[in-house]
């Protein structure tokens, strides 16, 4: 009797949870849909809806500036994510486990890029780079991005590993694995949700960053957000909308393909197992 009551309750909870989540996803995606729709707007700048056209998509293929900056942003974002998550993960673990001189200092410093408005960090880094004669370009932008991504990564992972014991690692090492093996095979899988969250966060922060990228950019390339920011004064042309729409479609298709492949593999494994 009590079992079916529990099941009913669980079912109800699932439904409520699903509705709630869908509502939130809707609110998060409404601006995205509006943006996609306006990529078909027949107007020079997106003031209001003025009729349907696909001219912006064809214009994209001739306007290399917009696509070039997207590519530039992507490269930087991927590199920044990899560097930040790597440094951040081992950093979070190391800061939790070991005591060393200056540990408190490093912990406090980690908060600074989160607290201080980005413009301040950007200006400070700009001046330091100028003084040591470092040429502005992808390298400087990358340094800027990692500087705020690493703290976010560390804080996220710390939220995950907080309170964890070391029994698993100790057991692993007792069984003969060295530190590196333990890290790869024991520690990393258990904190993977945290690492994944940190990676997504870093990528998002980097690809949408405008302040650092504006300050630390060289003369030859801009990231996409910086390009869009400079359009703000006159108006954003719908070809940027078109580009973003394509981006989203690519991501969605990739996700769907990923699912299909996984599903097919699963099926195949099951089939093989029964043979």
């Amino acid at each position: 009797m009590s079992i079916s009551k529990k099941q009913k309750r669980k079912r109800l909870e699932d439904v409520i949870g699903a509705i709630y989540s869908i509502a939130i996803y809707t609110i998060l995606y409404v601006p995205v849909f509006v943006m996609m729709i306006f990529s078909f707007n027949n107007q020079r700048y997106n003031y209001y809806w003025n009729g349907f056209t696909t001219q912006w998509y064809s214009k994209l293929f001739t306007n290399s500036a917009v696509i070039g900056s997207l590519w530039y942003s992507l490269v930087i974002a991927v590199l920044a994510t990899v560097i930040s998550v790597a440094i951040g993960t081992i950093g979070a673990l190391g800061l939790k486990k070991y005591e060393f001189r200056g540990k408190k200092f490093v912990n406090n410093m980690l908060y600074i890029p989160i607290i201080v408005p980005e413009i301040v960090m950007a200006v400070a880094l700009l001046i330091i780079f100028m003084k040591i004669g470092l040429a502005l370009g992808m390298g400087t932008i990358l340094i800027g991005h990692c500087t705020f991504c690493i703290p976010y990564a560390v804080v996220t992972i710390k939220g995950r590993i907080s309170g964890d014991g070391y029994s698993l690692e100790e057991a692993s090492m007792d069984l003969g694995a060295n530190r590196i093996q333990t890290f790869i095979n024991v520690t990393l899988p258990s904190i993977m949700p945290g690492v994944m969250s940190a990676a997504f966060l870093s990528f998002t922060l980097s690809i949408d960053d405008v302040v650092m990228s504006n300050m630390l950019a060289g003369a030859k390339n801009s990231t996409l957000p910086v390009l869009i920011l400079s359009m703000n004064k006159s108006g954003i042309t719908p070809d940027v909308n078109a580009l973003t729409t394509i981006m989203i479609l690519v991501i969605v298709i990739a996700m769907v393909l990923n699912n299909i492949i996984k599903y097919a593999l699963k099926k195949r494994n099951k089939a093989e197992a029964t043979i």
Partner: protein
Amino acid sequence: MNKKNIFKRKTLPALAMAGPVSLWMILFVALPMLYIIYISFMSRGVFGDVVYKFSLESYGTLLDSTYFKVIVKSINAALKTTVLCLLIGYPFAYYIAKKPKEVASRLIMLIMIPFWTNSLMRLNSWLLLFQTSGPVNQFLQSTGFINAPMSFVYTDGLVMVGMITTMLPFAVLPMYSSIEKLSKSLLEASADLGASRRTTFFRITLPLTFPGIFSSIILVFIPSLGIYTVTDMLGGGKVLYIGNIIKNQFGAIRNWPLGAALSVLLIVITGMLIYIYTRFAKIEDMEVV
């Protein structure tokens, strides 16, 4: 012999793990921040840049009541955003965390995808949607709800919507990470011992996920203090928060020493708030503070 072993066993792993992050923090955070503190004590040149002459002028300017007003306003707005993000985000994070890992990771990715589009364009989309001749007003008018177009744009409400949609992932992600960690057996044990769902939630789930909540608060409240794009676009540039003011000092208004002084002030205030908060919440594992 002994020393070498100790080095290998204790110092080397510590260096390898915590070394890169410490080095990065020193080079690219501590050093620039020292510079910022330094120039906050310098004077303003003709173009608002830094003239290396000692002066307390910037700090003197801070005593003006305008800045006090701005700071109070900003803290207020950031608090509202944070509380709303937590309230909205926690159930959401809980729902995702209870799903199997592959599903959860896809759901998380779904949250982040809008943020891979450009934030300026998303904010602009809210404007396009809610403007006087926009779809929302047209719909409301055609269904007879209202007679004349309502002005949704450039209101506090829309700004708050913008802030929440901008900050929500930063709340959800750490909380998800922390909730996911909850061992199912703990919850089952609690139920077996006769605790109601509510008791289980308040006495087991909530406290154990507290580190995630804490991370969320940090990742939402603090940037909310410094953000300016949302109020610029959705607020019509009519209200300035501390983020706008600081950005202006390095931008349109040009007074770098003052901007530096304001940043130092912001750090001090935020540091104090964090300190009070952790004391109040009696957090122990918070080496982050």
